[in-house]
């Protein structure tokens, strides 16, 4: 019996995983991937089956825990935003070498156009590099169906499978027909235990297998099902290769029969045979892919020079940013529809820290102190507090990757920059800041680390923070001197005390930590509502 329900792409994938017999989801929140784990956390089946769904400290710990679950024979999934792939890359790439036992699916949600991200990296390159299969659904229904297939496939070839979503798939709703839940896997031992010990002698043997399997993936019946050529009509001299949601934008512009032959790709490795088949009859190939020119770059290697390749590299489509149906329309030379004229009266409305947010009060105090130190630089990090870069605060000088505030402050300080201040959130601190702080202690770096602690992971909607109630103890354990771990409460009435504390710690020659703690205004509101209901 099937049931129809309206789901976000993220939710469809999450439900698909639950129905595939998932035993654990391991993740760190990050837009646009957060809703996958949240959906699983809230689903009744999770409680009924005791499915692991607690947030991990970061993407690397998540990936490793999931690999452990797979070792034990269970089906496990790892979810993250695209830049999380950088954090878990060590384990991800090596998980192809160990292979999987229970089905292991890694979900990366890419964010072309950088709606909530610092770059546009395309996770398909990771799959290619690690030599693992990759799936890229073009609809919410495919997201639901494909994740189940991904678990089966992972177990068939003992290999992790990467699933790639992009923002518009992750955060768009559609009706999905869902099926029944499969049983979870029992505990089981890997059949080839040597693979899991990546000593060079073992890894060399495994490397050959992984490479050999690449060919098998292309021959697998699923590759034919997920990568299809649609015969074209009268304009058969140009062929179009459309992957993932690129297919949707293409089809949006087609009325009636498709005039061009189209190859739809939703499963990788790239289907070389199908592409060659297309190139036999088409002198030009247009590649429509969301993200970076992954397929386009590789085509040159498969095809004779006589075939013209169009896409993001030759300027037929924009080199950066997400695709839209309009971009495709223009590229295909179809006349635009008549629309209302654009108005220049509308002004930009950038995101801002919420009114009443503790980060606001912290930056107000910090700015006041920093004004007295013209050489000071503030290295910041990833979270709501990154918005301190914008008006009216202009309070930070950097935002690079999770945890970089502390370590960049160390490097700058050792190069002679003073004062060297780091601003990091509580969740980012436990994600990747703690090891940097240990470096600082070991090097006795002259830095002031401000941990703006709102007791949650704020930017992604208020998920639990791993260091809840333990920040001071963690700093103490790492070796920061007790008298230089200071606590301030960011409220206007405390400005004088806050400024004095920050000033004292900047003046101190060594590692100091100023914990600036007040609950996120959004989660505080939610907690209050809950309290009132009782």
């Amino acid at each position, binding site marked *: 019996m099937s049931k129809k329900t309206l789901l976000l792409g993220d939710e469809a994938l999450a439900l698909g995983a639950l129905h595939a017999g998932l035993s654990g989801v391991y993740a760190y929140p990050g*837009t646009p991937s957060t809703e996958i784990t949240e959906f699983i956390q809230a689903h009744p089946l999770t409680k009924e089956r005791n499915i692991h769904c607690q947030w991990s400290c970061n993407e690397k710990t998540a990936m490793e825990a999931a690999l452990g679950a797979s070792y034990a024979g269970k089906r496990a999934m790892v979810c993250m935003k695209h830049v999380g792939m950088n954090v878990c890359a060590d384990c991800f790439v090596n998980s192809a070498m160990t292979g999987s036992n229970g089905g292991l699916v890694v979900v990366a949600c890419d964010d072309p156009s950088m709606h909530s991200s610092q770059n546009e990296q395309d996770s398909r390159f990771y799959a290619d590099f690690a030599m693992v299969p990759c799936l890229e659904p073009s609809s919410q229904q495919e997201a639901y169906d494909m994740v189940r297939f991904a678990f089966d496939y992972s177990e068939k070839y003992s290999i992790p499978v990467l699933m790639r979503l992009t923002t518009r798939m992750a955060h768009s709703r*559609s009706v999905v027909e869902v099926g029944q839940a499969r049983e979870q896997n029992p505990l089981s031992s890997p059949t080839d235990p040597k693979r899991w010990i990546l000593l060079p002698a073992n890894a060399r043997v495994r490397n050959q297998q992984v490479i050999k399997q690449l060919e098998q993936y292309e021959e697998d019946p699923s590759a034919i099902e997920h990568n299809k050529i649609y015969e074209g009509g009268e304009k058969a001299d140009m062929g179009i290769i459309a992957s993932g949601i690129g297919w949707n934008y293409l089809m949006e512009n087609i009325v009636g029969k498709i005039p061009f032959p189209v190859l739809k790709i939703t499963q990788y490795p790239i289907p070389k045979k199908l592409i060659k088949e297309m190139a036999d009859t088409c002198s030009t190939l247009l590649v429509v892919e969301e993200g970076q020119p992954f397929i386009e770059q590789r085509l040159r290697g498969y095809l004779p020079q006589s075939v013209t390749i169009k896409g993001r590299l030759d300027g037929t489509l924009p080199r950066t940013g997400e695709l839209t149906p309009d971009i495709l329309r223009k590229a295909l030379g179809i006349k635009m529809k008549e629309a209302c004229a654009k108005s220049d009266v509308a*002004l930009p409305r950038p995101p801002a820290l919420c009114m009443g947010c503790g980060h606001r009060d912290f930056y107000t105090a910090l700015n006041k102190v920093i004004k007295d130190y013209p050489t000071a630089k503030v290295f910041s990090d990833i979270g709501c507090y990154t918005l301190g870069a914008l008006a009216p605060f202009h309070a930070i000088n950097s935002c690079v990757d999770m945890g970089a505030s502390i370590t960049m402050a160390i490097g700058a300080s050792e190069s002679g920059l003073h004062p060297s201040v780091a601003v990091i959130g509580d969740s980012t601190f436990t994600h990747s800041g703690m090891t940097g702080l240990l470096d600082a202690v070991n090097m006795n770096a002259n830095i002031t680390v401000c941990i703006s602690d709102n007791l949650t992971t704020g930017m992604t909607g208020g998920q639990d923070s791993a260091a809840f109630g333990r920040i001071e103890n963690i700093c103490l354990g790492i070796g920061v001197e007790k008298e230089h771990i200071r606590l301030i409460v960011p409220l206007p009435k405390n400005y004088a005390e806050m400024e004095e504390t920050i000033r004292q710690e900047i003046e101190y020659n060594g590692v100091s930590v100023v914990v600036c703690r007040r609950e996120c205004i959004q989660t505080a509101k939610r907690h209050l509502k809950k309290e009132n209901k009782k």
Partner: protein
Amino acid sequence: MKKDIILSGVGGQGILSIATVIGWAAINNSLYIKQAEVHGMSQRGGDVQSNLRLSSTPIFSDLIPEGECGLIISMEPMEALRYLPYLQKGGWIVTNSAPFINIPVYPEIEEIKKALQKDANVIFVDSDKVAKENMAPLSSNMVLLGAAAKYIEILDIEKIKEAIRNVFARKGEKIVEDNIRAFEAGLKCSISK
């Protein structure tokens, strides 16, 4: 038959509840639906929009192409302006007339009204005020939905009401009634125009 609708506003104004109601009605009337939302950074007081596509035949793109949107429902007047290139010439805009000012420079409201009316049919509703007058101060978004209801066309007004009842049911009878009252007050705002 199809209808493309853009919902716009500022993060936190409740456009996603409007989308949820229309979405429920669409599903229960066997329409195809795609609804792209904005999550993440912009939800912190930035501009947010949702592309809502309803059709009796399958829909491919999650995003509405330029010139295909028939209706903009906006919780904020300047935010409606941002999506004009997506609106068909002569399409409808139903917008809250009360500006939400959280930026240092905000255009003159008369200038915004003029720009909106240039190529489109516009209904301004002081939905915050109407909601308060109807003792449903938190249901400004349902007032606006009521004012926009007859321009949705692909769904009967009664079906939208049924959706409101179902979507808010888990929040209790009072919330359901507040939202229905707000919706009906909104309905009157557009019919009297």
